[in-house]
Every structure is written in C-alpha cells, then in structure tokens.
C-alpha cells in the first residue's frame, strides 16, 4: 500500500490514474481547486477500493500558502511515496499573443506553480531518500510551435526543471518521472476534432502506473509520440517554418 498525493486531482488523466491506485488499495490525498468535484471523485475512489482518502483545496494561481497545504497533506498521509502533479491549462494562443496577463497566467498554472511544488517536495523526497515524483508535462514542450508556444514553453520549462531535479535526486534514490502525453481526449481538448493519434485518459493512466513501477525517467504516452517528437525536433528551421504546425 503506497501513500500517494495527487495535485490537480480533478484532471481526467489524474482521475483515471487515481482509479488504478485505488484499485490496488493505495492511500490517497487529493488536491484540486474545486472541493465539490473532489468529493465526488473521493466517493468514487472509496468504492473502488482506496484504503484511506483525504482531499484538500489547492489553486495554482491562489494566494494561499501552499507549503501549509503540503505539510498538512504529508501529515495526514503519514509520509509520502508518490507525488503526481497533473494540473494545467491549455491557453488560447491567439489571446496570449495580445495579452501579457493571459500569457503570464498560463505560465503560472503550467510552470511556476509546478516549480514551486517541486521545490518544496524535492527536499522532502531527498531527505527520505526514497519515493517517486511524477509530473505530467507534454510533448508540446519538446519544440516551440507557432500554434501553441505559450503552453509549449511552460511545459518545456517543467521538463527541463525535472531533468535537473532527476540529476540532483539520482544519488538519493528518488525517481523523477517526466510524463509527456500526446493528444489525449479529455475536457481540456473537448473542442478538437479527434483522429487516429488520440488516446483515452485510461490508456495514459496505465502507462503512468507502468512507468512508475518500472522506475522510468521520461515517458512519451503512448510511445509513438517519442518517434513523432524526434522527427519534429530534427526538422531544420527552414523547413519547419513552412509548416503550419
């Protein structure tokens, strides 16, 4: 039985993952900004077999002292084995281009709040010399593209931050997992037409659990996004700039 803290626990991908934790009887603490949604999810996870389940409110743009919230969560769980960070927003790229406020807000939710979380938990995990930190980044962080670079830059920052943290925590035996999903059919992408490349959140959840169990560092979910991004990263600018990606 693991002690798991999930931040952004109302996300579709996080919820699907929490169900797998619950089924194997783990102990869960869920943080998200909407208490009503959290209670519904907590009831569901209880029925699915979660041993012990607590919830708390956390807003990535909030003014509250998140350290207090995290302290309390660890105390309630009586330790921590796995941290999963899942919150995020897909901002309107065009709106961001004409608004500094929108751009910085997207950065706050997708990047700086995550950096704050990781700074706190890195010390906790480093001290205990065990456990797993898993963060949902995105393939969008692998290369800046005109259609989506505000989101992409924030995710890219998270990926690089995690890479450094992994380096630092390697000697403490702490796993640092960067999860890079491709297109996933969730409320975040409700407005998009879905094609063959799209995955369901349940599928991503299984891959997250597998990557945690196998102590992986970076996973593309599903795997073929690793190939797609390798190609996208390797295309020279003079060709890339002719695309509308």
């Amino acid at each position: 039985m693991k002690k798991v803290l999930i931040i952004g626990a109302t996300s579709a991908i996080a919820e699907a993952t929490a169900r797998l934790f619950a089924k194997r009887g783990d102990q869960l603490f869920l943080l998200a900004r909407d208490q009503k949604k959290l209670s519904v999810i907590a009831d569901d996870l209880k029925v699915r077999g979660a041993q012990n389940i607590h919830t708390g409110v956390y807003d990535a743009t909030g003014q509250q002292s998140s350290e207090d919230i995290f302290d309390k969560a660890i105390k309630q769980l009586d330790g921590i084995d796995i941290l999963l960070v899942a919150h995020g927003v897909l901002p309107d790229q065009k709106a961001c281009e004409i608004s500094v406020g929108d751009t910085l807000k997207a950065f706050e939710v997708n990047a700086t709040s995550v950096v704050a979380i990781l700074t706190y938990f890195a010390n906790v995990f480093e001290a205990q010399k065990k456990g797993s930190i898993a963060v949902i980044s995105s393939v969008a962080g692998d290369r800046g593209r005109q259609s989506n670079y505000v989101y992409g830059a924030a995710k890219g920052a998270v990926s690089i931050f995690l890479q450094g943290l992994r380096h630092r925590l390697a000697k403490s035996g702490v796993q640092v997992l960067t999860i890079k999903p491709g297109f996933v059919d969730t409320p975040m992408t409700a407005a998009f037409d879905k094609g063959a490349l799209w995955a369901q959140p349940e599928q991503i959840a299984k891959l997250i659990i597998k990557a945690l169990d196998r102590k992986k560092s970076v996973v593309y979910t599903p795997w073929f996004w690793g190939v797609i991004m390798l190609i996208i990263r390797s295309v020279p600018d003079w060709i890339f700039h002719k695309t509308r990606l």
Partner: protein
Amino acid sequence: MLIGGWGQYPLVEAKVSSPLSGDDLQRTIKTREDKAYIARGLGRSYGDSSLSSTIISTRYLNRFHSFNEKTGVLTCDAGVSLDEVLDTFVHRGWFPSVTPGTRFVTIGGAIASDVHGKNHHTVGAFCDHVLSFRILIANGDILNCSPSENRDLFLATCGGMGLTGLITDATIKLLKVESSFIEETTCKARNLKECLELFDTHNSAPYSVAWIDCLKQGKDLGRSLLMLGRHSGQGGYDDLKKTALSIPFNLPEVCLNKLTVGAFNALYYGRIRKQTQERHVHYGPYFYPLDGIGNWTRLYGAKGFVQYQFVIPKDAGLEGMTRVLDKIAKSGAGSFLSVLKVFGKGNDNFLSFPFEGYTLALDFKVSVQTFELLDQLDAIVQDYGGRVYLTKDARMSDHVFKAGYPQWEVFQSVREKYGAIGTFASLQSRRLGLDAGR
C-alpha cells in the same frame, strides 16, 4: 462529427457534448438552444437509437457513489460501464444481475434498453434489478424514480430508449457469486425441434442460449449448440484478461459470403465432439466472446450492418421460428452470428422488449436485399404477435413498431406529461412516429 451506432448504419453528422457533472448537465438542458437531445452511453445499440444531430454523451458521468458489501446494492452514475462494474466488484464476490453479450454498455444504456441476458428466463431483465434512478427531465428538474416513486416515469424510462429524459444515476442490485468462473455445458441439437426441446429440459439452468447455424435447410434446419451455464464455486477470483486482438480495418465485402460463413459455422459446430461437453470457463469468454475481438464489426465491410432481433410468443415457437429460419436460409444472406434464447415472463415497462417466448438475433450486411428480407421477416413476426428489439433496430416502419408495442400510446402520454416529446428525440423516435420531423 460523423457518428453511428454499433452497426455503423446509419451515420449522422452530430454535435456531441460531454457534460462533466450532473450540474453541468442540468445547465446544458436549461440553457439549451437546440431543440432536441438524445443521450448516448457507449454506443453499443446497433442502429439509430442514440443518434440525433445533438447528442449528450455520458462519458464523464462515470463515478461510483456508494456500495453496500453486505447487500450488493450499488449506486453509480449512468455513464459507468458494466466493464467497470465487473472490474471493481467481481473479485469482491459480486456480479451484474443481468448482463448483455458485451460488457461495454453503460448503466444508463442498459436501463434505457431494459437489456436482457442469458438468464432472462430465471431472473428477468436488467430493470427488474434496478431499485431506483434519477432522471433529468425537459424542464431541467431531476426526479427520483422507482417502482413506487414517479412510477409512470419509471415504467416509461425502463426500456424507453432515452426518450423520457437523461438518467443521471441509478441504484442497482448485484448478484452474489463465489468465483469468477462459470460451469458451462454445451449440448448439440440436430435441428430446431431438438433445440427447443433442450431449452425446455434445461429450463432451470440459470443461463442458457443457443447458437444457430442459419445456413442449414430442410431436415437440418435449426442445427444448433445450446450453451448452459451457472456460476461456479471453484476457481477463485481471477481478473478478466483483456485481449488486444482486433480487426484493424474494414474487410472487403467478399470476406463474408455464404462460403466463409458456412465454413465458420461448420467449424464451430464440429468443435463440440460429444453430445454434451462440459467446461470450467472464466466469465469473460462465457459472457463476452466478441469483446475479445476489438472492432469485429469491420468484418462486415464499410457499409455497415444491421442486427435483427425479434421475439415471438412461446406457442408460436416451432412453427414461427421454422418460417423465419427457412426464409433466411433460402435468401442465403449470411448471418455471422445467430442467437436463440427463451424469454421468461415480461415486466410492466411500456416498451421493454422481452415477453414469454423465443427470441432470435441475426446480423446482416447492409444491402437492398437485406432490407427487403427484413421487411418480409417483419411480416412473419407480426403474424405471430411478435415484436422487434428497438436497441438493435435501424429500419423498422412505424406500423410494425406500433403493432409490436401496443403500450406505445401510454408511453407517449407519459412523455407528454414530462415534456419529453420534441426535447428528447432520436432518429429512431422520429422514424417510429414518436417525434415529429426527420
């Protein structure tokens, strides 16, 4: 997006919205601009029951609320699938009281079609194990329904094909089981008469179903395998192994012709050597043989297919079934799977399909000949006072529907009372004359 039912016929261009919660759903209905909606679960109904230009998917209404380990009473959202119920509860000793031949149906869909399983003759239909549900009606209110509370709406909604409102959550009773396994007995029947006799002899078996070779004629007409089952006490609780075998693309139409189906059927029948054969099998392959093959519908090619399921009264049995099977055999239209079952007594729900008698389900490729054949079968079914299953239907005429479901007018009056007419409507309800327009 272009969307269809399980048979991929017909296809419609539709706007699909997926509310995130009951509140969200209520907002959708209260602030609606579009005139009519239809609910959609996992889209396992074959024809146009879950189709309309505006569809509300229950994919995010998929949470359990509570479960009583002592009584097996489960409350959950309407979008929860039987697959999740099985995954969560079988290893704790509980099984759905009634399950159709696929585990990828939602609780809402199972109620709306009042689905039946191989145990209809012993335990009735799905809704006979529904203690209550809540439903969002046209004015945006959410009402509690049970056999005693808002009884008229309960009877209209169970089997009502989503035409009364949107079920948000339900309380159902699960069945206690001692393991994940089934003791299966397969008996060979050389013809229809033998098959119906075998059903009679084994009417106390909890589960029974027969697979019929529709290509056989004359003295072999109705050659079949009868498969009986009961929950086993042995073997413990094993999770279902989910296979990933799937058919990656639509096969060219020639793949399913008289020859291949005939060969398949011969192999299937020949597999059972002795007169009766016993097996200790996991519930997966026993109840859900087709779920092991993803996208099997692609076997039928790109035009899609229709399923035809009807029931005729018990006393019409041998004669009626003989006429139907004869017609199909002579037409040479290849039905890949033809399933025969005995129904027990029906319930009070206005549009529920099952009543005491024999039911047969067949698949056909979409073609002009198929539709002609099905019209002829409708006439035979009507002759014997039978009816055609709405959740499989994509083409029946409103006359055939109204003759088969004599309580349709009561159903309409309840819809009228709750403001459902014109608000909850599908392509099917329009075709059957229950809603205006096309």
